[in-house]
């Protein structure tokens, strides 16, 4: 079973040289730490930056330079700044190659819910709805089951949706899965030491698994 960093490490392997990538808050942010050597990637922050660099050294924080999570960050040589309309313009126009974001639930049809829990204070969708509706390539980083032990990979979402039929790949602490165009989760890889049956039990939606599902290779 993977920890958060393990999930981030596995997702980092999906990033190809030359990709422009948007990382959501939470586990996706960690992915930046595991981008393989020799792979040139440009991170977009949807408030209006291409070429997000690491956190600043202590004492060098610039209040005018933050990311979409409102964290102080830095730029890199080759960075560019733009307004929020252009930022979401390039997202809508699919200039961003890969979007990685978290989810509360994903359905076997690729629907995603990640912004609202009825009865709880709703903070807002931020850019999530724009990102899931527009991105050509989305990976969801999430826990397979919630704290109550219930599967978050469902036949259909129970929570208010963020987007419909948009998720194609999921990486959890247990597995890597594709969402099939005809519906259903296709098991691609198991976390080290996790059995297919264990994953099946943790997956409420339809699961397709062949007999020999390989273990993930992370390092």
């Amino acid at each position, binding site marked *: 079973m993977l920890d958060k960093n393990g999930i981030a490490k596995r997702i980092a392997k999906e990033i190809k040289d030359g990709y422009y990538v948007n990382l959501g808050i939470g586990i996706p942010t960690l992915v930046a730490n595991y981008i393989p050597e020799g792979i040139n990637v440009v991170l977009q922050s949807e408030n209006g930056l291409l070429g997000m660099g690491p956190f600043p050294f202590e004492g060098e924080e610039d209040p005018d330079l933050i990311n979409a999570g409102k964290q102080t960050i830095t730029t890199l040589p080759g960075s560019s*700044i733009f307004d929020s309309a252009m930022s979401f313009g390039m997202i809508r126009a699919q200039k961003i190659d890969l979007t990685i974001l978290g989810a509360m639930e994903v359905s076997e049809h690729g629907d995603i819910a990640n912004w609202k829990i009825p009865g709880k*204070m709703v903070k807002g969708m931020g850019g999530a709805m724009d990102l899931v509706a527009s991105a050509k390539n989305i990976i969801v980083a999430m826990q397979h089951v919630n704290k109550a032990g219930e599967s978050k990979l469902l036949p259909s979402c129970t929570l208010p949706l963020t987007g419909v039929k948009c998720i194609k790949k999921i990486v959890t602490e247990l597995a890597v899965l594709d969402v099939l165009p005809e519906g259903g989760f296709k098991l691609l890889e198991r976390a080290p030491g996790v059995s297919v049956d264990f994953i099946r039990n943790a997956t409420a939606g339809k699961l397709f698994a062949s007999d020999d599902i390989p273990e993930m290779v992370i390092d």
Partner: protein
Amino acid sequence: MINKVVAGPDEAIKDIHDGQTLMLGGFGLCGIPENCIAALVKKGVKNLTCISNNAGVDDFGIGLMLQTRQVKKMISSYVGENAEFERQLLSGELEVELIPQGTLATRCMAAGYGMPAIFTPAGVGTEVAEGKETRNFNGKDYLMEYAFDADFALVKAWKGDTAGNLIFRSTSRNFNPVMAMAGKVTIAEVEELVEVGMLDPDHIHTPGVYVHRIFQGKNYEKRIEQRTVRSKS
């Protein structure tokens, strides 16, 4: 050139009245019109509808106007980290319309570009789509979203000249240029106000035609919401 300079925030906002719709630039606490917000609190104008990506924190940004109950309605994409906001929302004192961040930005741009409506896929199939026209182009569904109609836009720039030309610094640009374009009356506060001719025409982010009033702000706090650093070792 046409001189847009006013003495300060009080004069700039003097004709903002109860019940009007304001756009406020900024993302989180970054690039917010601190001086204009302080002046609005001082003036005590009420029942405002505020279009702003966020709603500040309890004791800063639009949060200050929430403390004084000046806001009737917030139109935002994300309103976290604000206890007073939450209290007013749950008690029904405050009306909130949550819209996707890109839709928010693009509805501002539409107003500034004289386009009455735009199409975006954001929110298709979700509760955001309720009551809205959905239209299919090339096999993909889009929502039709309308241009905003705001009485005033309050924006914060780094440098500005007396003709109203604005330059923003780093990610404090965010929503400021698109809101500057969108206000019926746009008020810009700047850290440094310069004479015309001091700014390179090629570097101007917001042409002065969009700005009706400009003043040099004071005492910028520029509070950091999430201070994240790495160690030098």
